[in-house]
Structure formats: C-alpha cells, structure tokens
C-alpha cells in the first residue's frame, strides 16, 4: 500500500489545489488499569490520524477553506473524491485572506535539528525513553508508595505514550517532531471507623521520575487523611481563597483567554496591547505571563504548533500590561501578528512575597474541589469544596462542603501570588495564588 500522505499530495496536485495543509499524527500508547494494585486491564493503542485542509482563493481578498481527516485505509480514488468535496465546500466558509506559515517563519528551527526528532532542547533525553520503559517506571513507582492501612490507592490508570507529529503545507513547510508523554488517573482512599473518602487527580507529565510521582501521590494520601477529619465549611461570606494545586491554572487560563487573538478579534476580549488591565492602579500584584517553548517535565514541549507556527518564548503580559496576543494563524494574522503561535506551556512570574508571608493573614486554602472552574469568557468562578483548610486567628480548621464563587474580572485587583514557583502540567505558576474577597457559601455555622 502506498503511504496516505503521498496519495493526498497526488490528489491535491491532480485537483490543482494551490494552497493546503496536512497534519499527520501517530500515537503509540500503552495503558494499564489497576484496581488497588491488581491489573484490571492492559491496552495497547497504535493509531494514525491524517488531516488535510484545502484553501480556495475567492477573490476580493477572501479565502475559503474546509478540512477533514482522511481515514486510514482510504483508496486513492476515495481520497481524491474527498478532497474534491472539500474544494467545493471551501466556497461556503469564506473569510478574510491570510497567508499560511512559510519556511521563513521557521528560520531558527532548522538550526535546532528538529527533524532529527528532538523535541526542543530539553526534550532530547526524554525522547530516548521507550513507551515500555516509561510504563515500567510508572508501574514500579506505584508499587512503592507510602500507603498505610487507612490511606491507600483505590485505583489508578497509567497512560504512557510516544507521539510523532508531522506538519506540511503548500508553501514548502515540512516539520516533524517526536515526544513522550504520560498521564495518570489517581484515586486515593482514606478511611476511619466511620467512613471512607476519596480524592481524585489526573496529572500529566512529559516524562516522569519515580520520585516525582511518589511525592505527588504521597501528598494526596496526606490530603485523604485530612478529609476524614473535615467539618462542614462555615458560612464565611467574603473570604480570601488560597490555591496551591493545579486548580490555580484555571485562574491564569482566563488571563490567557483574554489575550487570545480570536477572542480579541471577535470583541470577546477588550484587552488592548500596551494598556494596563489595572485601569485604576489598584491591583495588589503586577502580573507577568510568558509563553514558554520548553518547560521541564511538561507533556507539551513543541517546536511548532498545529499550523506550523514557531513556538518560542514570548512575553504576553508584562506587569499587567498586555504585550502580545497569541493563537491561531488566522486570527493572529488579522491582528497583524505574523510570527504568532498557539501557547502550550506558560509561566506566571512569582511575586515579591514568599508563600509563608502570604499565609500570615486569614485564608481558606482549598486543595480539592469537585471541579474548580473559571469561565474563560466571563471569568465566572465556581467550585464545590471537597477539602479545605480554614486558617483564622492562628488556628486551622479542616473543612468540606459548600462552594466558592465570584467574578474574576471583579476580583483581579485582589490577586496575590507567591515568589516561589511550581510546575503543574504545562504551567509554571506561583506556588501560592490568593484571591481576596471571594464568596464562600458554607454549610455549617
């Protein structure tokens, strides 16, 4: 059988499609599902997904486009029919003209030998790990946890993978990279004579050391022990919320959303380049957010985005002043950004005060929500409290139940962050994020 990409390129040529993109992703993944420490099921996944987008010049500065995944196993005739269909449909999705990324946009890329399969500078060593080795490391780490008879793993799922992705387009851009990744679903139980509780996490890693994983699960087991002692969250009215887990990323994703080129172009964000979001000069924290190319341990260290945009370090927000929008090629182009890209990894710079100093005031630290959500469009905050620590007047009460709510645009001025930083998945953020004046609906007195 001839390769699917060759068949797609032949069809594009025969149909005289002058502007096109192809992305091709192959995933090799091993999965292991455990109930306590017994294997529930093992799975192997080997998939390939090949997508093509065709563009059509509609004149008067307008460009049509349509896209689809070409199923594996398609015959050349089917591929040609599909692409002919896309060419026709492109006439119904017409938008202002923009230019795809060309080889010139990746000038520095070739110097990094990206085509040798190196996923950025920090990815080289990680990339040598096989899926089997990565899975073995994770399985063995989970066999060596600080469990006790009252705090232990209920169940867990291990996903170890290697992904190869390729991007090519009609301007001659031809990129590829290979990178490893791992995701784990962790369910921890803790119990006493009266009841049993659980905590849930879904962390992702670029690679994973056994020690890193054991430390992560160890903290979760500690949280489990505390949840057993939790009392109903009191009716606090307005309080200071402290976030020290990956939930804090939801807060910063709202900031990123406001600087997304599509949201700006569509008037869903009013954030302007060079104009501080702290209009009254009342914000506690001058916040700086930076796009990062490589973040050690991140599962998303990429050389290029899904449209061939060069991923590199860029300052997006500097001391509360938007400096640069980010996003898809189409919307970046509309805003005059010719070298933009999607953001995979980001850093939020730490503040001037340490975590310890921030913790000197009264605050509610929530380490487990049902689901902590910040609406990326409205900034509405909501989350049911599963485990929190109410620190007040020198004492600490372990609490559960009730919820936090509020509007981030109205609460941003009360945002404070620690100087220490910590990585959660694709984000390097302050170890502690505080939001003052949030509404806490309790279930106790």
């Amino acid at each position, binding site marked *: 059988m001839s390769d699917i990409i060759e068949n797609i390129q032949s069809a594009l040529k025969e149909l005289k499609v002058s502007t096109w993109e192809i992305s091709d992703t192959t995933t090799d993944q091993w999965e292991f599902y455990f109930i306590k420490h017994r294997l529930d099921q093992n799975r192997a996944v080997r998939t390939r997904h090949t997508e093509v987008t065709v563009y059509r010049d509609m004149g008067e500065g307008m460009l049509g486009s349509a896209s689809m*995944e070409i199923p594996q196993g398609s015959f050349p005739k089917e591929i040609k029919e599909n692409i002919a269909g896309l060419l026709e449909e492109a006439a119904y999705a017409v938008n202002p003209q923009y230019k795809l990324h060309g080889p010139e946009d990746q000038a520095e890329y070739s110097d990094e030998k990206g085509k040798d399969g190196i996923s950025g500078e920090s990815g080289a060593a990680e990339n040598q790990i096989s899926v089997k080795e990565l899975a073995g490391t994770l399985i063995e780490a989970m066999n060596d946890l600080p469990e006790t008879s009252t705090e232990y793993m209920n169940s867990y799922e291990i996903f170890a993978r290697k992904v190869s992705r390729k991007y090519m387009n009609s301007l001659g851009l031809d990129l590829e990279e290979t990178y490893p990744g791992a995701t784990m679903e962790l369910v921890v139980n803790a119990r006493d004579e009266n009841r049993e509780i659980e905590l849930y996490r879904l962390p992702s890693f670029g690679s994973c050391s056994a020690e890193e994983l054991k430390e992560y699960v160890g903290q979760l087991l500690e949280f489990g022990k505390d949840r057993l002692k939790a009392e109903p969250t009191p009716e606090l009215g307005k309080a200071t919320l402290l976030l020290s887990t990956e939930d804090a990323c939801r807060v910063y994703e709202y900031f990123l959303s406001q600087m997304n080129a599509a949201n700006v172009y569509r008037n869903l964000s009013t954030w302007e380049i060079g104009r501080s979001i702290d209009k009254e000069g009342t914000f506690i924290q001058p916040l700086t957010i930076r796009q990062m190319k490589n973040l050690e341990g991140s599962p998303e260290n990429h050389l290029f985005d899904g449209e061939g945009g060069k991923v590199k370090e860029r300052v997006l927000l500097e001391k509360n002043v938007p400096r640069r929008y980010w996003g898809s090629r189409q919307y970046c182009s509309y805003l005059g950004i010719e070298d933009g890209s999607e953001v995979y990894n980001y850093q939020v710079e730490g503040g001037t005060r340490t975590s310890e100093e921030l913790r000197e005031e009264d605050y509610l630290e929530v380490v487990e929500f049902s*689901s902590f959500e910040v609406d990326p469009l409205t900034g509405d905050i909501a989350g*049911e409290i599963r485990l929190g620590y109410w620190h007040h007047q020198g004492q600490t009460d372990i609490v559960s139940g009730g919820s936090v*709510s509020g509007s981030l645009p109205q609460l941003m001025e009360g945002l404070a962050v620690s100087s220490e930083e910590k990585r959660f998945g694709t984000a390097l953020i302050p170890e502690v994020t505080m939001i003052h004046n949030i509404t806490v609906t309790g279930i106790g007195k």
Partner: protein
Amino acid sequence: MKAKFSEYLDSIAEPMKNLVQILSRKYDYVSLLSTDSPGLTLLCTRTGKKVSHHTMTTERGNVIRVAKDGLYSEFSFNEFDPDNIPALAERITAELDSQIELLKITGTSVYETGVLSDEKKELFVEKETEILPEKADTGELMEILQQISQKGLETSGEIVESMVRAQSTHISKMFITPNRFLRQSYVYSEAMAAVVAARDGMNRMAYEVVSGCRGPEMFKDLLEKVSDAAATAVAMLDAEPAPAGTYDIITAPDVTGLIAHEAFGHGVEMDMFVKHRAIAADHMGQRVGSDKVTMHEGALCDESVTAFAFDDEGTLAGDVTEIDKGILKAGICDALAAKRLGTEPTGNGKRQNFAHKAYTRMTNTVFDSGRDSLEDMIKSIDCGYLLKGMDSGMEDPKHWGIQCIVSRGYEIRNGKLTGKMIAPVVLTGFVPELLKSVTMASPDRIIEGNGGCGKGHKEWVKVADGGPYLKARARLG
C-alpha cells in the same frame, strides 16, 4: 430514508471475522468493534465561518478485546492490510505479549475475571434520517446558520457575538465475536446558538440548542430559538450575584437533566461499584428521593444523540428504572463490571472512540414527568428561584455530593416571578437530601444531548438528559 450502513465496514467484515477466528485459537475470549463514522461541523460567527468534517464522534478504526487466564487486554488500531490478516493477528499478539512480559517483570497481579458470554446473535439496524451529513448540501446549511447568527446579532446593540455551531455524525459500528455479528447505522445531530452580550468589559452568554437522532435538517429549528438566547444574554448583563443560601427552587428541564446526570447518573455506574467508589451500592432498595422521583436510564429511553441499538461491547440497548418513586432500584453496567458483580450488562458499555477503553457510561438519563403545572409551582414559592441554563456539573459518587453550575436564576417572591435575575448560580448539596426535597413535577419531558460527558476528567462521550420542571430545595451560591 435509511442511514445506510458503511460500505467500508461491509468491505472489511470478512477479513475481520477471520481475525477473530485466528485470535480465538490463542485466547479464551475475542471480540472486535469496528467503526466508520463520518460527520460534518459547521461554524458561523459574526466574524467568520468554518467547515470541517470532524465532530466529537467521527472516527474510523478498530479495537480487539481478548481474554486469557482471567486477564482482559485490548489493542486499538486503524492502520492494517485487510489482505494480510495473519500478519495483523501476529502484530496484536506480539504487542500484548510484550505488555504481559513487562507485567511479569514488575510483579503485577491480575484482577481475574470470568469469560464473557458469547450468545449467538445477528443484528442489522439502519435508522431513519432525512439527510446524511456526508451528503448534505453544505452551502444550503451554511446559509441557514448565517440567518440564525444574523438574527441573534440584530436583537440588540449590546450583542457582540452570535455563534452557531452545528454538527451531524453518521455512526456505523460493527461488532464481531465467534458467535455475534451486529451492525448498526444511525445519524445524530446537534446545534447550538450561543449569543454573547457585553457591557463595560463584562461578558454574558446565553444559548439555545437542538439535538436528536436525526440529520442536519434539524439545524433550521434554531431560527425560532436564537432570539430567546439573545434576549437572555442581554438581560443577564443586569443580573446580580447569587445570594448564598438555601432556597426553594424550580429547575427547568435542562437543569433537571443536569441533576439527573450528576446526582444519580454517575452514581449508579456499576464499574464504580467494582472499585467501591460509589455509595449507591450500599443503598439499593432504600429511599433516596421523594415519591415524585422516578428516573430512567438507557439508549431506548429516547431517540436522542445516544439512541444506539447496541453498545460498544455488543450488548443490546436497554431501559433501566434506576429510581422508582424515590426507591433506588438498579444501576447500569458494562459487560466486564457485570461479570465481576455477577449481574447482567445493561447496554451501557461505551468508549470515547475505538482508541479508548470501554467503561460503564450513561446514555439517556431522565426524570419521569408529573402532573403539576409550572404556574402552580411558581405560586407555591414565597422566596426562591427558577433555574435555567445548564453550564456544567461534577459528580461525586463516593460521597453523593453534587455540583451544578447553572447559567441563571429568575427570582420568585410571594408566588410570582419578579423579573430580577441572578447569574451565575452554583448549586451544591447532598444528593439524597436534594432528591427527597422534590415536591412537584410538571408534565413536560424535554431531553437534549449537546456537548459531552466525561468520566472523572476524561473519556468524553455523547449523552442526553432531561425531564420535567421540578420543584425542590437546594443550596445556592
């Protein structure tokens, strides 16, 4: 017209039967699920349009499930040569043997499970549709979306965006074991008009939806609904924060569906019973709601986005009465969990796609209707809210907590709607307490299936839920 079964799947049926036969020589159980589901997504916004053939459920691929000595293993793939099935069989066994080798090195023990039954069955189902997504007139459909979007934009000068997203998928699935050969084909569609209003840097969004086991012909139904979404978005600009407290509430059918889904839908997924992750296992036969609460779950409950004939493990679709007049009666179960629990599968074994594991998942989750009018419900409340607009929710089967994020609440004082609105609203509580507080249910029965449902924070599948207006008491924040 019939939604014609995939020619591609028909073309690989015999090679795949051969694969199952070859693997059956080595394994105690073998099944194969093959999928071929093309689709269409159209997007029309104030500033742009998009045509794609990717939806949440478009796929073409295969998953082999085998069992040996009590261990179930799977291999998912979409690249193979149908003319060389023995080579494919070798590839599958080599990969799975390599995993077993690693498990031996790590000293991993197995949760042993009996062999699934394989009763003889042949089934061929092609459901009705007006239009197939792969044959649809894209230009005509985009014109309709343009009209819907424009109508939303023209409602008010404060509307900044009127986005219409419409999707349709033609599902074809084939399930093969040594004794079973099941094939099904149906089309489901969904569309949403989401309108954003803005004032002084504040955004508010409201939406209206259509969905069901039909073709893209349903998209035009949004034309009648988009003005409501636009008017609501503008009204929400004046909404006040929800005052924390416990109130009498009336849930509109979409919020009723969210509660059904999060409260007891996830709570009786019986793969969670196997892991001792669901408190419901200890409360079968006990009261968990008021007499007004009866809840059904199953693909047969409604012709919705998840109205399949058989699930992803080859179990025929069902209709389970989970709660009958407040008494917890039954859960839902995938095939492996059923084997482990010594019960029967209910047709709820679903995968995100062929590359994912099957879990116990919901299909249609629905509260039964009652006889109380919405007007009487409102009149019965001194101080409370009518909740509309499902945003999101999160399950907690272990502790029966519930979190529902609702778009807005309409204030009720002294038996009347006051015209004041609160937004957003976070509804939390203890599931049995919430369901025991249900005192009235309307005759309505509205079921929608837009968006997706995760298990934990992954494994996204199509589900539908709904029911009538319900009156209950809940904590809002």
